[in-house]
């Protein structure tokens, strides 16, 4: 089979020039095009997600005013907005950006492969994903409105009681399609990493982004099954009238929460790990220093993947589950912060003493890391059942998970966009607009969520449509207004990115092969790389992080470089 694949691929490459517009840009099997398609869809969905954020925040700050562009909304519509915001941002922005876009674009290039192991399955995955996005967007105009039971779709809210009869079912179908897409994609990533590495590319020479994409894919494959089982049962409840989650028929609503969070917690890492991977990949390039603790980072990642499968019930401390379960789940939750702390320390140690170059990708990496640390530290209060019982229903939780997911998704994703844009499109993005984009995003992000931490500590309950319903929290209302003003600023801050993204495609300076003087294999080929990626199969001769090697002629040694530094100097810490 592999031989046949090589022959057919060679034939394919010859005909690459002759491919028409549709085969080249729309129904393409080229992993680079598919990566860009994922990126495009995720950025488009981010607009939808951003709009829901704006509507939610406006309602919370000025509930009497009516939302400009949407008008006054009902409590049900508010619940729909919250549900769709969470669903869109996690499943249709974070995953396609961090896994779909950068996984597809980078993995084959970084491994020296001509494409994914299964290019046609890869095309199938992006089209299933596109369909899922359409189904989800269509549910906004479904009779009864979009799903309104939260991105967690808790039963019984999502069961037959909801008035979003169509919306909830469409939500389930959209999520099912999205899972199918990333299941196919994950299997493809895994198979590619184990069968398509070029000569010399041992596992211990793989760039950390590849490791993280693989770890995220494995974690997704292991965690999604129980949720799919739960979703099948929920769909049967809704369509066939079974009672899996209906206590009046002997069912158990908590069953859904267990199945959901068994997936839901790992899902955070499915998103976070590739975000870390991007940061880890960019850091050494702009610090001109080898990564600190390459193997330690990989081992920590594997430990985190394993532990993440046994922490889920920390989301259920106040759900009415058996309180005896709280202690073991508190312990595993606190434990899981250890591997992440190790990774964060490795990142800081990589930066320490480096000759830092503050180009836009690096700014997003550092800003993202700093913000993520806040998210990580505030998570400790929620992981411990004792303090969680007070904080769980408040805005503290909202601020906390935005401080974890926003940095990895947007700071990480933007860092990746600024860094790989030259490879994707052959031109550089504008640095001044990029820096403006970073500083505005960074400042408005903090200004949005710091007030929400304070509101949460003050006890303001989340998931409330009309804040004035609780007069006792009226004194905290200015915090909500601050957060809303900052959110509008945060959304407006994305304008420089949009301008930069499109104008650089035509007016940006030509990038050349290796504008960042980076070591990984993708920088050894043309920008953008041709179909088939490498004219001759590359050979990896070292790990990817040889920066500022003593005695070397330049401060970087690409993975393909043959020259060895003078004897007696230990270079390759790994391999």
């Amino acid at each position, binding site marked *: *089979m*592999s*031989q046949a694949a090589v022959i057919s691929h060679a034939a394919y490459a010859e005909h690459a020039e002759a491919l028409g517009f549709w085969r080249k840009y729309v129904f393409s099997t080229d992993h680079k095009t598919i990566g860009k398609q994922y990126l495009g869809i995720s950025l488009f969905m981010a607009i939808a997600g951003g709009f829901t954020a704006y509507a939610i925040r406006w309602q919370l700050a000025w509930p009497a005013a009516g939302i400009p562009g949407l008008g006054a909304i009902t409590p049900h519509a508010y619940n729909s907005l919250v549900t769709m915001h969470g669903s869109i941002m996690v499943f249709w922005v974070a995953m396609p950006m961090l896994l779909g876009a950068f996984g597809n674009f980078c993995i084959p290039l970084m491994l020296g492969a001509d494409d994914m*192991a*299964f290019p046609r399955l890869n095309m199938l995955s992006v089209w299933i994903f596109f369909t899922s996005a359409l189904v989800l967007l269509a549910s906004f105009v479904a009779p009864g409105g979009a799903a309104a039971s939260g991105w967690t779709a808790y039963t019984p809210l999502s069961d037959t009681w909801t008035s979003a009869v169509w919306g909830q079912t469409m939500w389930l179908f959209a999520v099912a399609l999205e899972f199918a897409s990333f*299941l196919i994609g*994950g*299997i*493809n990533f*895994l*198979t590619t990493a*184990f*069968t398509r590495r070029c000569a010399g590319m041992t596992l211990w020479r793989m760039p950390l982004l590849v490791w993280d994409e693989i770890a995220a894919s*494995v974690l997704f*494959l*292991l*965690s*999604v*099954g*129980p*949720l*799919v*089982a*739960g979703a*099948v*049962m929920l769909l*049967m409840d809704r369509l*066939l*009238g*079974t*009672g*899996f989650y209906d206590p009046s*028929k*002997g*069912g*158990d609503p908590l*069953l859904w929460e*267990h*199945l959901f969070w*068994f997936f839901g917690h790992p899902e955070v890492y499915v998103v976070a790990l590739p975000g870390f991977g991007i940061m880890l990949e960019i850091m050494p390039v702009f610090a001109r220093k080898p990564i600190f603790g390459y193997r330690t980072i990989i081992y920590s990642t594997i430990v985190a993947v394993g532990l993440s499968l046994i922490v889920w019930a920390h989301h259920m401390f106040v759900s009415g589950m058996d309180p005896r379960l709280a202690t073991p789940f508190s312990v595993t939750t606190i434990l899981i912060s250890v591997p992440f702390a190790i990774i964060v320390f490795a990142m800081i140690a990589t930066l320490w003493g480096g000759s830092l170059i503050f180009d836009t990708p690096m700014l997003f990496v550092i800003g993202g890391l700093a913000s993520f640390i806040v998210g990580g530290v505030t998570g400790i209060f929620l992981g411990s059942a004792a303090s969680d019982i007070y904080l769980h229903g408040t805005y503290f939780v909202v601020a906390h998970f935005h401080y974890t997911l926003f940095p990895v998704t947007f700071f990480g994703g933007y860092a990746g966009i600024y860094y790989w844009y030259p490879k994707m499109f052959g031109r550089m993005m504008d640095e001044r607009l990029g820096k403006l984009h970073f500083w505005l995003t960074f400042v408005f992000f903090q200004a949005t969520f710091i007030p929400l931490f304070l509101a949460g500590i003050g006890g303001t309950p989340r998931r409330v449509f009309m804040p004035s319903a609780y007069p006792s929290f009226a004194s905290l209302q200015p915090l909500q207004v601050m957060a809303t003003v900052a959110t509008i600023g945060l959304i407006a801050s994305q304008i420089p990115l949009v301008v930069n993204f499109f104008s650089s495609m035509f007016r940006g300076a030509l990038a050349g092969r290796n504008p960042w003087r980076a070591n990984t294999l993708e920088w050894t080929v043309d920008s953008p790389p041709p179909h088939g990626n490498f004219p001759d199969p590359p050979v990896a001769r070292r790990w990817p992080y040889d920066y500022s090697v003593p005695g070397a002629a330049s401060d970087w040694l690409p993975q393909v470089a043959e020259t060895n530094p003078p004897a007696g100097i230990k270079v390759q810490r790994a391999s």
Partner: protein
Amino acid sequence: MVLAVMALIGAEVMFFGGLISAFYILRAGSFSWPPIGQPRLPIAVTGINTLILFGSAVTMRLGVRAAKRKRRVAVTRWLLATLILGSIFLAIQGSEWIRLIQYRLTVKSSLYGALFYTIVGAHAVHVAGAIGALLFVTCSASRGRYSDSDHDGLTACSLFWQFVVLLWGVIYAMVYLG
């Protein structure tokens, strides 16, 4: 290909793990099992059916071995035998479902029925999928595809088949006998 199927099987194990844990959680919370007025599951007939499916795992294995020994006709013959055994299994399952429905066991009659049809139905879908894959592989085999050194597709198909058979053993033990 083999690695991809192994990854798929990993995800499938977790999927059925979710269904089976739901089975035990809901069963633990119920008053009597099976609920009053609901039929017991046909242990004996299904037991024989289980043996038929296990037999198909053996014929599958023999088919792979024949491919490794480059015996083209034998490969096709063993794969056909596997196909027939798998189809018999599905047919008997189907007729048992019809009988159970006549005894008023449906998805709506009780949680017991809902769980039974969900778990066994999900498995049946997998058997049907495996039969589809096997049909494709058998056609390729009859054209001599796997009698040279390349039996990647056959190995992958056989792996999935063995998984579906083994999974049935677990489901039979936990849902019918448990």
